[in-house]
Each structure stands twice: as structure tokens, then as C-alpha cells.
């Protein structure tokens, strides 16, 4: 049985793990097998992180390069860094923003321009999302990860209601409305 393989990439601290947990919970709700693996430990904050999610997966947790159906990137440059994990037709849902890594200042490395990063994704269907803008609209910049998950929802082989229910189960009650607004706004952006 082949799985629907999803890669979530970003920067440590941006909330890739919560995004993968929401998808996992949605799979449980739908009775779909799921496997995944992610970067943990060793103070990953600020570092490049990846989370593999295999919806319908029954084998190991790792996605092979050239094998992912979809990538959710919480940072534009990280989308480029992991692009080779996608199938040729693999879709990219990407935050239209990148954080300049400190290596640019410390080692005086050139920082690619935004348009060059977008160009580097050419060939794949790409949805650029203003995650910060939509998160601000939802009420707090902290929910950019849920905005991005919402934007990916129309592409995922899971019902939007399952994902919403998963958000409800996993997010603390007092932040629930905020997260559901973020999910809805993201979903709207993902459909356009």
C-alpha cells in the first residue's frame, strides 16, 4: 500500500511538531495508518528542521528524496533546501517569508533574494502564503503553523473536519478559537 507522503519543514521553534501531531490525530480519527519522524533534541532552536509524515504509511517513517507528495514549508528558504524530497509533480505550500540565518552575518555568506528563492521552486505547483499576515488577522503571530496547515488542508487526503477536530483535541482550550480562525484563514488561502 502506498502512502501519501508529506514533508513539513521550517526552523526549530516554528511549530512543525504541532502541525505533524494535528495530522496524526486526524489520521486516528479517520482510521488511517500513519508513520512519521521528526527532528528532536540538541537545542534545535533556530536550526533547520524537518518532519516526515506518511499518511496511510505502514512501513518505516522516512520519506526518500524524490518521494514526497506535498511539502509544507514554514520558511521560504527551507522550502528550497528540501525541494529535492518532492516528486516531480509534488506540491509546495510555502510561507512567503524567510528568516535570515545568523550564518549570513557570522560567516559573511550571501543571502539569496526572495524572488530567487521563489524561482528555485519552479516546476512544482506552489502556493505562497502570507502566514504572518493571516496569523495577525486571526489574532496572534504564534499560529502561523496552523495557518500553514490550513493552507495545506485542501491538498491533504484528509477531511477538513477531521483536521479541525484534531486541532480542537490538541490545542489548549483558551487558544482554541484563535487556532480555529487561523486554520480557516489558511484553508481559504490554500483554496485560491
Amino acid at each position, binding site marked *: 500500500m502506498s502512502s501519501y507522503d508529506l514533508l513539513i519543514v521550517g*526552523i*526549530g521553534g516554528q511549530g512543525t511538531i504541532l502541525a*505533524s*501531531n494535528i495530522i*496524526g*490525530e486526524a*489520521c*486516528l480519527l479517520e482510521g488511517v*495508518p*500513519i*508513520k*512519521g*519522524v*521528526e*527532528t*528532536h*533534541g*540538541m*537545542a*534545535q*532552536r*533556530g*536550526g*533547520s528542521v524537518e518532519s516526515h509524515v506518511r499518511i496511510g504509511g505502514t*512501513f*518505516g*517513517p*522516512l520519506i*526518500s*528524496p*524524490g*518521494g514526497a507528495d506535498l511539502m509544507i514549508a514554514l520558511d521560504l*528558504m*527551507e522550502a*528550497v*533546501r528540501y*525541494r*529535492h524530497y*518532492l516528486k516531480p509533480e509534488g506540491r509546495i505550500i510555502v510561507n512567503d517569508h524567510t528568516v*535570515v*540565518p*545568523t*550564518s*549570513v*552575518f*557570522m*560567516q559573511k*555568506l*550571501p*543571502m*539569496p533574494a526572495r524572488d530567487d528563492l521563489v524561482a*528555485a521552486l519552479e516546476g512544482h505547483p506552489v502556493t505562497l502564503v502570507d502566514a504572518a499576515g493571516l496569523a495577525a488577522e486571526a489574532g496572534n*503571530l504564534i499560529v502561523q503553523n496552523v495557518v500553514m496547515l490550513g493552507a495545506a488542508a485542501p491538498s491533504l487526503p484528509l477531511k477538513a473536519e477531521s483536521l479541525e477536530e484534531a486541532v480542537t483535541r490538541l490545542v489548549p482550550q483558551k487558544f482554541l478559537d484563535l487556532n480555529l480562525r487561523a486554520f480557516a484563514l489558511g484553508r481559504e488561502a490554500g483554496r485560491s
Partner: protein
Amino acid sequence: MVKQYLLGNEAIAHACIEAGIDFASGYPGTPSSEVIDTLRAQKKREFYIEWSVNEKVALENALAASWCGQRSMVTMKHVGLNVAADPLMTSAYTGAKGGFVILSADDPYAHSSQNEQDTRRYAHFAKLPCMNPSSVQEAHDMMKDAFALSEKVGLPVLFRPTTRVCHSKGDVDLGEVSEEHRTGVFEKDPKQYVVIPAHTRALHKKLNEKQPMVRKAVMDLGYNTAEVRGETAVVASGIAASYVQEVIPDGVSFMKVGCFPIDGAWMEKFVQQHKKVLVVEEGAPVVEERLRQLACGVEVFGQMNGAVPMEGELSPAAVAASMVKAGILKESPFQSPAPAEGLPPRPPILCAGCGHRATFYAMKRVFPDGIFPSDIGCYTLGLQLGTVDTTICMGASVTVGSGIANSGEKRPVVATIGDSTFLHTGIQGLINAVYNGADMTLVILDNRITAMTGHQPNPNTGETAMGEASVPISLETICRACGASFVETVDPYDLTATLEALKAAKARKGTKVVIARQACVITARRAGVRRAHFRVDPETCTACGACLRFGCPALGKDAEGKANINELCSGCGVCAEICPAGAIVKEGRK
């Protein structure tokens, strides 16, 4: 039975509760730490937990609980087992009474480790059984069985998950939580527990005589499976087995070795039914070596003839490549598109406001020609700041420092070690350095917690793993008791005072200690500490770049090269002290 989406380590912890665990100890280490952290987080908890000061201490504590009849577990990462190797080897002689599991998580590819050693080697060395799960579900099931296996054979059982099991997630079927618990009672039995030569010789013989029974008990668990489907076979162990299952062609036999020691007769029978066998495993060629002893005439592919990589971790694509080399697959089903080039790297970095960065900055200022031995912790990331010249293992900053100092090297030696690492194996090194007159400075980077592995408490924190208050140890008192006559404590956010303390240390002979104390910026935030952010006054900023070289992720620059401060700022204020133009000011001030 309930199904949950869990991290491997969470599933392992749940299995412990299902098995009715009574006692858990360990020292944090990636990828093992979440097992005890999950146990700590249980609302209803009828078992004892401790984060011990090091792995040897942890293993001895859990072993003793087992001798008292409790179901016990000790957790650590693979290199921690080196620290605990002394009691490990002889615990095989004394044996276990209550089920005793030694979890030692291996880290192929050294995602966050200093080497790639294989715990299964230790199992062989100590003559102990070992379980090597291939998935999250199997890790759960094996851990539950491990306690009973230990009781059945009367031996500690090694449990070897790898990073991609510990930090995998999957839908796991969980069992019922056990209500059964045991209160420890120690029954004196010197012939079992006092390993004087006369006793230990008899115990060794007993251990050897047990081995056939152990092999059978391990086979009876059903984790070692084999299916003959053709003339060619693939044999796999651990996570590699799940990769093999993803790519193995029809008509190729498959053997999975989940538990050790291997029953030679079982393996020989399987191997002899084939013309060609490929052995796939991460770590050392443990299965392959055994199989080659039994293969006589059968063609074997594996690590030992280059068909499988001898280092790093495997993946479905790597396993497919091995199958191609062994002639089991014509070509790999995986493409290998080229990664993008020329992107600036984004390695993990010290947090904005981390006190370690400020201490490193001061060290470089005072000791421009210094040699900087360091240790294992978040602060190893100081490599990027040029203040980490060596790391080898826990506690080795002090000892490598004293060795360099006593080698005749003339440049000043300034070693750095975290509070948890100092308590782990740093103290002995300090005693040794002071007593033998090493001319060096030891900087203890004291953030009050074991941060890198996920903020576990240590004796410097003031709270136990059970969540109970305990009197925090005094690092100053320990250092003075070790014989250090110069012991100064500074707040690294106070750059001037830190520079002064380091200069004073530099001016003296002998082994000096500077304790740079500032709570981990993450735990401080969680505890409610809020500091006003800083900002750059663009009119005063001269775009000199001094603050950017500090390397804080809260600092960036605009198109004109002038600095700016983003929302990551935690308000430590060190950049304001660094700025030569006085352009960095606290929010709300002119």
C-alpha cells in the same frame, strides 16, 4: 485497547506503565530522554523516578531496586552506557530479581552524538539479552515483554532503540495500565551480591550455563521471524527491517532479528536454504558476523564486503542501493534529485539571550590566544563562536584542559562545562587538575538545568524528577572543596563584571574557577521572567557590525548595514554593552 499517535519514546514509556514499572532512573541523552520525561508527566504515578547525576549512578540505583524485587528501568543514550559499563558488566553476574531493563538508545548518523557505537556489542560483551525494535509499535510491545523476560532469565535486559524509533511517530495500540506494584525488600544473599573472587567465579559459570536457556527464552518471544520465499534472502535488524519491507521484491526471503542472542541453529537452517543472503543493519555488523559463521558456502552481502554502509543511518533508498549491489534488485525504485546548492546553512544556534553566548564573548575578549576545551551541552554550539576547540565526552573539558596545560603548551587554557555535565563527571577532573597544579581556568556555564536534552532537573536545580523541592547543591562549595582557591561567580549578562572576573583569573597561577550563572533563557521565560526588549537607534548606529558578530539571532541588519533587533529579543542587554556607539537602548528609552 486504545490507539494513539505517539512518539516512539512515549510508546516505550506507556509500555513501562503497562508492565507495572516501580522504579525508573536515568541520565538525559538524545534520543532517550523523553522516556523518563513521559513517565514524569503522568498524572497518576505509583512509581519512583529520578534523574541521576550520571549513567553509572543511574544504573546502580535501578539495579539495586531490581535486587529488592521491583520492576526497574534505567535509560541513557549509547555513550552513557560507556559511563555505566562498569556496573553493567558485573550486573550480568549478580543478575536481576525484579524485571530490570537497561534502555540504551543508539544514534546512527550521530544526529546529536559524539560517535555511532552499537549497544548490541555491549549485550554480546556482557552476555546479556538485547531487544532491537524496528518500529514504534514493536518498541512498545518489546518493552512490555522486556520486564518479564528479565524476570524469566534472571538477568538485566538491554533495550536498544535507535533515533528513528525513539523519534518516530506512529499509530500505536496500547494496553491497559497495570495496577500491580511491588515494595522493595532486600534479601541478603552474599553469594549473589558480593562479587569477591570466590563468588564471582561461580557466578560467571552460572551466567555461561544460562545462555542456552536465554537463547530459547528470546526466541519464544516471537520477535525473531523468518519466511522462506525463494533462493535469495534479506536479513535485517532494527529499523532497517521496516525499510527492507518497503522495498523487498516478491520471491525474496526475509528474516528479521529483533532479539539477541541469536539462536545459531535457527539462523543456520534459514541461511542454508538460500544461495545468497544480504544482511542489512545499522551500527556494527552484529547479525552479519554471526551469520557469516554459519554461512559456509552461501554467498553473503553486508557491511563487511561493502554492500551496506558501515557508518551513518540507513533509509529505504540506502537499502534499495544495497539490494542493487547484492543483485537482488536490478535498479533502485528511488530517484535521487539533486539538492539546491549555495544556500546559507542554518545550523542550530544558541537562543537569543542565552547566557552562554555572553560568557563566550567575554572569554574571547580576555583570552584572544586562549585554548578552549569544552564539553557536551547546548554550549557545544559555541563552536560557531570560536570558543570550542575540543569535545570528546562528558566531563572531558576539565581533563583535556589540564592535560594541555601540563603538556608544556604556553597559551592560556580556558575550559567550559555546563552545570549538569560538571556534576556528571566534571568534579573528579577538577580535583585532579587542582591537586596536580594545572594552570588553567574552568568556566562553569551554570544555567541551573540540563537544557539541551529538554530541561531536566539536576542537583543544581532545586527540584527532583518527582517534582519535589530539594536543596540545590552549591557549585562554589564543591569547587572550593576540590581545592580551587579562586572561585568567582558572575552574571554573564553583566559583561563588565564577567570580563573583570576572567581578567582576575588570568592574572593568577593554578586552577581557577569562574561560575557564569544565569538561568536558561527558556526556563526563565517559562517561569514568567520578562525583560524589556532592546532596540537600535538608527541615527546613532554606525553600521560597524560589532553587534552582528556577537551572533545573536535577535540581531539583523537593514539594507544600509545598520543593525536592527527582531522579536526574538529576550532583553539580556549584552549587545547594548558591546555596541561601541551606544546605539542599542532599552525599549521605551531615548
